[in-house]
């Protein structure tokens, strides 16, 4: 991919209008780190988004709104009650990457190893987009296929709404890498909602060792309405990942990826349970 020209918008609406005008030649550029992986020979017109705002994290009471152009370093540094997403930012790449890579860039063109989609699926996030007008897309729909295709008509991601974790809800995140700054080989995120000592419901998602991030619905089914115990987690983690078509990356075999998935799911659930039972908020 080669950038043959640059048009710099001042507002989200101007960016959208230019993208629509340019059609297939248009390329939104947020932090620009993803360009390294776009190897097709097409010549594109870059639309850098660094002047249109959309940066920062705000809490509305019911959800955290993360501007699409918020760097991952800012996600990592943000702190608030029952905010769990900073952990995902901290475990992404290196500090130099986190300083320029944006939340939007990470989830608009999703590579298998992308970290945020897995967490956002588990957290039941909602993407806020600009088409003719603003509209919202739940994570389950947004990540049902490559978002870049949805956005090919010039629609622009404005923000991500992450629901505030209510009392008795917990979030856990686990990422397997060869080295701290490496691409993920296995990413799992889990959100548990407890009712007393039982699991009312769970959302569990995985990525990196799958062709595309996805929820682990069999794991979720094995957790729902079960006691929140190590035995429940062990059974869900082993039986629930068995039918999934794991795909090992780098030097991992598919069979080893399946083994690692069971461990990562269990770890993520343990962390989510610990989070849910915290009383120091």
């Amino acid at each position, binding site marked *: 991919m080669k950038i043959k020209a640059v048009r710099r918008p001042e507002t989200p609406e101007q960016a959208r209008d230019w993208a629509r005008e340019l059609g297939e030649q248009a390329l939104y550029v947020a932090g*620009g780190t993803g360009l390294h992986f776009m190897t097709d020979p097409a010549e594109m017109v870059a639309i*850098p988004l660094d*002047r249109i705002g959309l940066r920062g994290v705000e809490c509305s009471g019911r959800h955290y709104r993360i501007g699409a152009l918020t*760097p991952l370093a800012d996600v990592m540094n943000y702190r608030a009650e029952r905010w769990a997403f900073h952990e995902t930012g901290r475990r992404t790449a290196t*500090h*130099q990457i986190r300083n320029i890579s944006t939340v939007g860039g990470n989830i608009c063109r999703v590579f298998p190893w992308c970290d945020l989609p897995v967490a956002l699926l588990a957290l039941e996030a909602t993407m806020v987009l600009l088409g003719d007008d603003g509209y919202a897309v739940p994570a389950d729909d947004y990540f049902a296929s490559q978002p870049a295709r949805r956005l090919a008509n010039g629609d622009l991601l404005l923000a991500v709404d992450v629901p505030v974790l209510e009392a008795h809800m917990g979030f856990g995140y686990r990422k397997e890498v060869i080295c701290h700054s490496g691409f993920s080989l296995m990413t799992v995120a889990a959100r548990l909602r407890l009712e007393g000592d039982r699991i009312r419901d769970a959302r569990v998602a995985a990525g990196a060792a799958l062709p595309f991030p996805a929820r682990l619905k069999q794991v979720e089914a094995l957790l729902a309405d079960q006691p929140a115990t190590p035995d429940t987690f062990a059974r869900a983690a082993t039986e629930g990942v068995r039918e999934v078509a794991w795909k090992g990356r780098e030097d991992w075999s598919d069979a080893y990826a399946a083994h690692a998935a069971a461990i990562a799911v269990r770890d993520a659930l343990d962390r989510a349970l610990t989070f849910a039972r915290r009383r120091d908020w």
Partner: protein
Amino acid sequence: MNDPLTLHIRLNGEPRVFAADPDEKLLELLRRHGLKGAKFGCREGVCGACTVLLDGRAVYACLLPACLADGHEVVTIEGVGDQEHPHPFQQALVEAGAVQCGFCIPGMVLSAKALLDENPQPEDEEIREKMDGNLCRCTGYEKIWTALKAVIAAGGGGGEDAS
């Protein structure tokens, strides 16, 4: 060659105007204009030898499209101290004997500068988080770590450079 872009960048404290190819990375632009302290290393955002500061934040110049630097402030190693007035971390690196081949050092210095400017007294965990994007293949990091801890022990050294 596509039509060049005109970029306005405050570079090492001086307002500058550059003509850049739309496809050019910031690292290529800087080196084309004689600022060769930032190195071509991995060219894929891993090694940190190309690290510069963009509005005070450490970034990989090898990945950053030059057009994203337009209207922003860039600091390279050429803007951080010199032989007569080194940045405290540069001085500490020399005193600790922490430089071997030196290829990684400009990036190390800039990452450390960003760290110390933001927090002159970082804890070890923050140091690891903020320095995790700079690789050194010679030293094993021990002496670089020693040098950085010495600067922190002496007060952090923020704001004592040419930029």
